[in-house]
């Protein structure tokens, strides 16, 4: 039997790696992939805890997590495609349409 701590350590490692991918790779596609890795760390936490207490709730939670992830990705990928189509950018730092014009005069 694997101790619960080890599963939680692996889940924390996955979550941290996903966060690092989001923070370091500034491309939109890589940000979504980092989100996937983070979601998987969370799912591993839920399943490991559910198995530890011999309870099906962890698996139910993970099923809902998968549904939410699939719904989020379907919309987010279309938005990435639209950003590429309209602005020809893949880096998230170049999407500055909503930013204030810091060079100009204050109104």
């Amino acid at each position, binding site marked *: 039997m694997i101790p619960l701590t080890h599963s939680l350590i692996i889940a924390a490692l996955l979550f941290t790696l996903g966060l690092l991918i989001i923070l370091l790779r500034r491309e939109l596609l890589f940000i979504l992939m980092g989100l996937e890795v983070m979601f998987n760390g969370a799912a591993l936490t839920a399943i490991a805890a559910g198995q530890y207490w011999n309870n099906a709730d962890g*698996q139910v939670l993970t099923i809902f997590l998968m549904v939410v992830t699939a719904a989020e990705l379907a919309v987010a990928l279309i938005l990435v495609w639209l950003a590429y189509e309209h602005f020809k950018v893949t880096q998230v730092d170049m999407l500055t349409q909503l930013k204030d014009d810091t060079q100009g005069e204050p109104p």
Partner: protein
Amino acid sequence: MYEIIFYLTAAIAVLAAGAILKVHHPVHAALYLVISLLALALIFFLLGAPLLAVLQVMIYAGAIMVLFLFLIMVMNLRSERNQSLPLPTGWKGPAFLALILWLELLLLLNKYSSEGTKEIIVIEPKTVGHALFGPYLLLVEAAAVLLLATIVAALYLSRKGRS
């Protein structure tokens, strides 16, 4: 034996996730992401959640990765490198990790049928289904509404003739 397979699989999952940090091409990152998701499916199986292992392979490694690859194909990034396929450069790392995963699965299936597993407490899909359609029935309905809203949003965002 069981512990060795578990920790090897965990190492593959973490290594493949870490490899996403340093690869350049999005297709290579998608390959490593598939390996990480498959390794995680094996971890779920080893922890005793066979239903979630199958769902992980079907939904994540199947449907969501197809979405990713389709988007990469549509966006056609790095068009200057289009002549050379990405296969000759970056397929060895993911293929090696996938080979290890496959060997582990063979070993596991052999052991599973022969001696059984007294150390894994398996929660059957039946139990999960009873929980899903018993106390969590309202959440299932909410998930259905969420999926409907996603379909509407996807159709709205991808319609033709947008100004």
